């Protein structure tokens, strides 16, 4: 989904980050790569805002960060879902499905039939 300026709607990026981390800890670059891959490079126009979002989610307590070492043995900051982050993801998915379902249903309607 795109906002008027062509970027990502903020809430959507948040959900994607939570989803990206739902399989375990990842660093920022891995999250960016995952989003790029699964969305066919459609959604993430710039990678910088991803970090702002990561830090914002960490501040809200949905993510927990820890420094560790990457596969090529470099120091990297790993993010992980907290318990509340996991709950948030679940709520977002439910909300999204309900919203998308409603919109899909509306768009699929053939003709309006006023009472």
């Amino acid at each position: 989904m795109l906002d008027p300026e062509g970027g990502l709607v903020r809430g959507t990026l948040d959900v994607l980050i939570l989803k990206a981390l739902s399989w375990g800890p990842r660093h920022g670059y891995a999250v960016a790569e995952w989003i790029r891959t699964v969305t066919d490079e459609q959604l993430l126009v710039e990678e910088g805002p991803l970090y702002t979002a990561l830090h914002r989610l960490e501040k809200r307590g949905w993510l927990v960060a820890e420094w560790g070492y990457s596969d090529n043995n470099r120091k990297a900051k790993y993010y992980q879902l907290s318990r509340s982050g996991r709950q948030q993801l679940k709520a977002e998915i439910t909300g999204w499905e309900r919203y998308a379902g409603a919109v899909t249903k509306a768009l699929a309607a053939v003709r309006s039939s006023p009472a």
Partner: protein
Amino acid sequence: MRPTIRTRFGRRSIATDVDDELAFHLDMRTRHLIDAGLDPARARAEAHRRFGDLGEVRDSCMTLDEGRIRTMNRVSFLQDFRQDLTWAARVFRRTPMVSGVVIATLALGIGANTAIFGLVNAVLLRELPVRAPDELVIAGDPTRTSSMGFDSNPRGDLFNFTTYRQLDATAVGLSGLAATGRTERLDLRIDGVNRDQAPPRGRMVSANYFQVLGVGAFLGRTFIPGDEDMVGGAPVLTISHGYWLRRFGGDSSVIGRDVLLNDAKFTIIGVTPPGFRGEIVGQEIELWVPLAMQGVLWPNTPVLDDTQAYWLLLLGRRLPGASLEQVRSALAEGVRGLLTTQAATPAQAAQVRDLTVEVSAGARGLSRVRSTYRAPLLILMAGVALLLLIICANVANILLARAVARTREMSVRLAIGAGRGRLIRQLLTESFLLSLLGAGAGLVVSRWMSRMLLVMAAGGGSELPLDTTIGLPALAFTMVLSLTAVVVFGVTPALRASRVVVATAMRASGKALTGAGSGMGQRNPLGRLLIAGQVALSLILVVGATLLVRSLQHLQQGDTGLAREQLVIVDVDATARGYTETRLTALAVSLRARLLGMPGVTGASFTENGIFTGTESISNLAVPGFEMRERTDSLSYYDQVGPAFVAATGARLRRGRDFNEQDAEGTSPVVLLNESFARHYFKDQSPIGTTIRLGDSASAEVVGVVADVKDHSLTGSARKRFYVSYLQHPLGYAGLLRLVIRTSGDPALLIQPIRAAIAAENADLPIRSVDPLARLMRQSIAEERLLANLAIVFAGTALLLAAIGLYGVMSYAVSRRSGEIGLRVALGAQRATLVAMVLRDALVLVAIGITVGVPLTLGASRIIRNQLHGVAPTDPVAFGVALAVLALGALLAALVPAIRASRVAPVVALRAE
């Protein structure tokens, strides 16, 4: 997951973290692009392009992180604190005895300190509840507030009305000058009925008094300047808030109400604000009357126009810019100038020149109580501070012992990763909680104690009217005390406990904390030091208390030269019923005859000033052949006394004879001297038969010498005194009448019959008081009794605490050594030997304490020298008693652990190690 690195905090580390994270991303992206075939420079540029605005992202990430860490720190502090409190509460619950003892002793120490400080504050520090008290200036001697002098010589400690009227306030740097003077007995009737249990305490004040002080009215109005212009015509009354509540039930319709004051009609015009009790600290004034009304209230003794009536104190408010020094010299100069114009003779004018006019800062009001209690209060303050020191040592010791007992717990917590700072914080939280509880309980104790102090200080049944409420300074004082206590007894164990070395502690369970040495002396050295200190401080208090008690005994049982257990002193207000001059003399003779006829009365006489009733007379005199060296050589105290006075009072006649009924008007005047007088003027020669000049023109022949008696104070030394015959009155008629009655049995039993006998003479005669002399004497040393009683309480508490501390340390030592003791038992040691071993150990501590304490005590006892009567500050008996009491207390405290040591079963003991 991969090994983690500790998260870093702080502004610099936040920046580093963000930079590291973003650099990692850019590096990864660059490498990825190179792998895809781009050359390194282009790859790098492309990575940056894809990233977007690096600076903006960096800034917003840092801002977010700072916010997060701030919240986290706050939350974790609160969480830690709550955890600390929970732990502390658990510790208290687990050891209720220890916590109870700590809280109770702290409450005692803090309570006693706050109460004494409240008293010190009220008497020595508190400013009058008036506007800008710093600007007030007092002229006159506050200690003279209880006497009203008529004197032919000019005086600088009290002032006559004329001087006050003529003083120009602005000329001496004052914006206003008020005068206040004491009243004689007041009798207030509402609707013709007197409902006061005691006469109201009043004060005569100039009409601008309330304006100068800046005290408004709670109800109605206070006096306004101009009232005093109408001498005899300002029948208005202002009453205190307290009196209004007590006497009028807080009824606001009192304003405008007419009452009878000493049979004159007065209108109540105002009530002063609560808390205002007049300018005299330690005296609660209940009503104020304009000075102008003096002649109306006491028509028999009008003093307003009498320049020989020195009775007023002056209260001024400094003008802005006028310093106390300037006002002091200008006011003194003004008074001297006016007294010079009033002087009747050149000799008096010359006296004025040397006169000291006392001018002092008036912020804290006037007080006789202040000068009386200053030294005792400061001594009590020092004593109670010592007590708090002992209590702190004791609490530190208890907590130290507990910290030792918890070494294992601490080491386990250190081992599982608790920070050392965290452990210290935990211990401090416990101490903080303890001190908070102690301070809270202490405030309750202090309320109760300060009431007790006021009752004790007043000497009679009532309280000294002082405002000792816990104001801000006292509260601050308590808080500082309890915080100090926290630091003293909280930090020490905390620091020690934090020194636990994990491995050692886990292995030895506490030995790391107590030292590895094997002898008793090496273990718990801080605890031992504290005990020795406590013993030293206790010694000071115990010796001080013993000295004060011995001094009190000396006062109570020492020879006064009077038959103290057999005398009754009666004070009748005869002048109030018109008995003056010859009528008063006739009344005295007639009353004496009645009293002598009563069963149980073995002697009776009368006197002007009485014994222990508070008034004094001074006369000038000249002894032929005696060369005057100083001014006091021409002055002496004297009294006018009736027939058989010496015999009736039980005084001892050294030479010559007593007065008798024939020493009356028409015969040549005779005089009795006391020994001090005789020794001063006649050395070893007999003064009998010598004629001395008394006053300005009278003369009298010496007919007897009487041993010195303590007739006004038990504490002072004897003064020169002579006695003239009440019936001959060579120095003028007596103005007062006091009766002295000697009884064969308990004087208290005769109080009612004596009242009846006086009523039989004239039922309308007001009786001010009928008191056994012993009671008057006891009241006169209320201050000494207060000091001695409190010293006993403090010393007893100190002793008890030292004993508890010693008991604790010895018990601990015995339990630590149970293995060694068990081994000794197994090897056949005698019980007596073991008991002696523990006792010896305890006595070593006491001996160290005493060795340090004795020089300290010798220094400290010198400070209370002025409070000791008939006892030297180095009194060996007092030191002996104190040392014996201390040693006995220590012995008892050590005996229980000693006996426990002797009962250690060898097997149990060996297993314990």
